[in-house]
């Protein structure tokens, strides 16, 4: 066991894992986090706390993690490279570990142009792969990237993200292989709408034996409307939403109901794809649907380990 986190235990047990996301609030009020934690407890094995996602200032990921841990819920913190240099990143990893946070997702991060602080000076001392490599060295050897060896290294379970739907497509499996080499234990993918394309990606993952080295969590997003589908299709770089999905949402009598139905179908299918070890549910602005989605997908109850 690298860190002994709940998520790690689920993977090790061979069970199909479930993770979901909680978006920290744009305020200093911890109440929304506590509220979501209480509502979602037991519906997933761990919950991602995003790190100033899309460069919008929010309650920090690590602080959010501690708040939800008080409700007995396991966090996955996210650490982007946009806002912090190697000194802060390594320091925050030590801090997170000291607070009992075990799961860390390493991301390069959205550029600040997308957020509400466009005049910010970005950092990008590392990219996500260097970050993984540095954190892996820190947890295994206690060694900083600058060379100094620390007493009591952090016990961390490292994750990454990967997007099978970004160009160059033929490079995306090799990119995951690099993340594996750098130390990633699990991977959450960008939301899948083009199932064929995802399965081709998984074919290559298995061909290269990567499914034996990293736990892939397939990403899904339940949609509320046809508008949401169109937005993701046209306005989000790196997302592919086939026309038949947009049409399905458009022609539905009750869009929200259809969106949930579609999401559950996707999860049921993903359960059968070899090499997929779990699902990552990103219910953006719709966290309250997660328990229902998990239940309808036959994934309740979630296991409890001592």
């Amino acid at each position: 066991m690298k860190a002994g986190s709940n998520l790690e235990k689920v993977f090790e047990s061979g069970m199909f894992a479930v993770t979901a996301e909680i978006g920290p609030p744009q305020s200093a009020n911890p109440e929304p986090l506590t509220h979501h934690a209480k509502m979602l407890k037991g519906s997933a094995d761990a919950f991602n706390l995003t790190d100033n996602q899309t460069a919008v200032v929010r309650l920090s990921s690590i602080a959010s993690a501690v708040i939800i841990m008080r409700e007995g819920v396991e966090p996955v913190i996210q650490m982007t490279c946009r806002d912090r240099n190697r000194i802060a990143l390594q320091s925050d990893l030590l801090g997170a570990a000291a607070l009992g946070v075990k799961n860390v997702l390493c991301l390069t991060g959205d550029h600040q142009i997308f957020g509400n602080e466009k005049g910010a000076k970005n950092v990008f001392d590392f990219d996500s792969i260097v970050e993984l490599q540095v954190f892996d060295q820190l947890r295994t050897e206690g060694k900083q990237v600058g060379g100094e060896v620390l007493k009591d290294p952090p016990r961390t379970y490292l994750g990454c993200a990967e997007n099978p739907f970004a160009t160059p497509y033929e490079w995306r499996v090799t990119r995951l292989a690099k993340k594996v080499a750098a130390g990633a234990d699990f991977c959450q993918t960008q939301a899948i709408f083009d199932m064929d394309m995802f399965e081709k990606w998984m074919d290559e993952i298995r061909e290269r034996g990567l499914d034996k080295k990293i736990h892939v969590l397939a990403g899904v997003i339940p949609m509320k409307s046809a508008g949401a589908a169109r937005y993701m299709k046209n306005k989000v770089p790196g997302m592919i939403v086939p026309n038949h999905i947009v049409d399905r949402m458009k022609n539905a009598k009750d869009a929200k109901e259809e969106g949930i139905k579609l999401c559950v179908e996707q999860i049921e299918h993903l359960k059968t794809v070899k090499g997929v070890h779990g699902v990552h549910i990103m219910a953006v602005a719709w966290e309250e649907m997660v328990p229902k989605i998990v239940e309808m997908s036959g994934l309740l109850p979630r296991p409890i380990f001592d």
Partner: protein
Amino acid sequence: MIVAKRKPIGEIVEMVAPYKKVTVIGCRSCVAICLAGGEKEVKMLVSALKIRNKKEGRKQEIEGFVVERQCEKEWVKEVEEKILGSDLVVSMACSLGAQTIGDMYPEHLCFPGLNTGIFGVPEEQGVWSEKCVGCGDCIIHTTGGICPISRCAKSMLNGPCGGSANRKCEVNLDVDCAWAAIYDRLKLQNRLDLMEKVTPAKDWSTSHAGGRRIYMREDAKLTPHQKKGREAVQ
């Protein structure tokens, strides 16, 4: 080369407002080539400022000149009289030129008329794109000749990120994803193996992050004895 562009004229109008005698000094080097502060641009700015004064009924003396290369003291000295005789110099050179005037004549005001800028390459007439940020430790031989520090919005060493769509950068869809381009280039050169290994953390101490940098050629520097000799001749 260094590429700059003229400040919005409104800003320059405000800058020069309190001064009676304004001298605009351009440069025939980089900023002339990128059409920001050469002879023509100086003339046009002076004319526009005069038209403005006509509208406001304001009396102000404005003159414009160009020097060969404003970051070199010898050439700036050629217009010393003009600088000393004015209340304000507006430099239409890059900031290097503006600061050279400022350093040579510290009691005289010299304001920048341009915003500098980038190390830019002329892509086509009228378009200059940034291809270097002076990190001080060039690695383009490992990336097929394409600099990821300047051309990737996130300066990634192990790109591309997940936002690369249609080989364009998510930050600016008019810009190519540098790492998609690097991938294509390395594939063309049969050197994709360079991209397969993890590139470790970059040492940024050679970049501006490490502090203001001074480059030297020791063998080209003058000894104190030589300097004395030169001064005697001048």
